[in-house]
């Protein structure tokens, strides 16, 4: 079907919010009698909704990736579901499992001492790429290339590209990802500088930066410094408090 130029212009003005309320009313009125206009309008609405849906799905994927890296939230037991007998057998089974775990724990824990390097490896996971994948064909700009490198775990490349981005424009989010890329690439001192810069000079992402800074210290074997940051994190209400307390116990 051929698109009438005049109709397309009208539709674009409608969806780009360039019409006054009065014009919008007239536009809706015209659609009642102009079937071609109505068809073009429905098609435009479908295409725009498809764009929005695709973008929202990318954000949803980012949230799902992020969720995977966070501590598990335990299911809450629903007491009413259990009858007394079931409860009894449940307690017996639980006691047996706990007994086995304690015995195994005593046996297993003794010879292993958690080194700071081991703890770092256990707890470090790069922050998920919040900007989604850029590999959808066509030209890819420098920013998209940086995020793509990060997503592909090419941390050396991501580090270089993020540094270039920061030379042009200061951005706490990019600085945070640069710190992650450096830490993942083994450039711990650079990562430390990135996170310290974020904590001292920006208002954003302090908590996250502190968590990753503590991991930098652990990796370098600077236990006292790691402990100091972890204590700070564990004493306030933040998403890393539980993990910080857990890690602090292991460090101690």
């Amino acid at each position, binding site marked *: 079907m051929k698109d009438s130029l005049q109709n397309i212009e009208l539709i674009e003005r409608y969806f780009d919010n360039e019409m006054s309320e009065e014009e919008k009313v007239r536009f809706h009125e015209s659609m009642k009698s102009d079937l071609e206009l109505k068809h073009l309008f429905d098609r435009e609405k479908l*295409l725009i909704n498809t764009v929005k849906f695709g973008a929202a799905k990318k954000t949803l994927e980012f949230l799902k990736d992020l969720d995977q890296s966070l501590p598990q939230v335990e299911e809450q037991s629903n007491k009413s579901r259990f009858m007394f007998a079931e409860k009894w057998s449940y307690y017996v089974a639980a006691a047996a499992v706990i007994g086995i775990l304690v015995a195994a724990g005593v046996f297993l824990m003794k010879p292993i001492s958690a080194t700071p390097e081991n703890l770092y490896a256990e707890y470090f996971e790069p922050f998920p790429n919040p900007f989604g994948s850029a590999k959808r064909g066509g*030209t890819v700009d420098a920013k998209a290339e940086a995020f793509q490198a990060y997503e592909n775990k090419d941390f050396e490349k991501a580090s270089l590209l993020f540094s270039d981005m920061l030379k042009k424009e200061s951005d706490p989010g990019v600085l945070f990802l640069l710190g992650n890329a450096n830490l993942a690439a083994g450039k711990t001192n650079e990562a430390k500088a990135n996170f310290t810069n974020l904590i001292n000079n920006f208002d954003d992402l302090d908590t996250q930066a502190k968590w990753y800074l503590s991991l930098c210290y652990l990796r370098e074997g600077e236990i006292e410094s790691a402990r100091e940051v972890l204590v700070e994190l564990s004493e306030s209400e933040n998403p890393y408090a539980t993990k910080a307390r857990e890690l602090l116990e292991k460090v101690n």
Partner: protein
Amino acid sequence: MSDNHIIEQIRRGGQVELGFVYEQYRSEFLHWITREYQCSVEDGKDIYQIVILIFHDNVKSGKLVHLVSSIKTYLFGIGKNVVKENMRKARRQTPINQEKWLKEYLIDDAEPAPIEEDVFATAKKALEKLGQPCQKLIELFYYEKKSMEEISSILNYKNAETAKNQKCKCMARLRKIFEQEMTNTTITTIS
């Protein structure tokens, strides 16, 4: 970092800050929703992710600029509405279907027409074929709700006027690809 500061950062496109909000209230929200509505943690997570997307959308569209209460209260409020709405639509308490929810939420007009799945699939295919930077441009405009000035700076166009021209060209291309795909689908169906 104050709540209103976080909102401002998210409005400017701060995805890391959105992740921060997600982490900050996740545990409390999941404990609350699993207790209040007797759902599993996994179903609670699906609801929480929809809640965060709605929060994100409200920030970007300018519906939420300054909070009277706190982000936490705001998120829990959205959570309650999402659960009620889900129960109303499904007529009973069922796990939320995220894709269906997103589609219905994004079509926010007064006279919603049901989307035919095959037509929607064709539109998705056309969008994939459109490629970059067109895809990014129209996404920034229609989903991120960025102004033409902001888009010209993000995508390195000369000025807002150039960005607007490019956007019109991209949409014209998308319409054309969509019509071609529709014709191909019809021919395939007939033969």
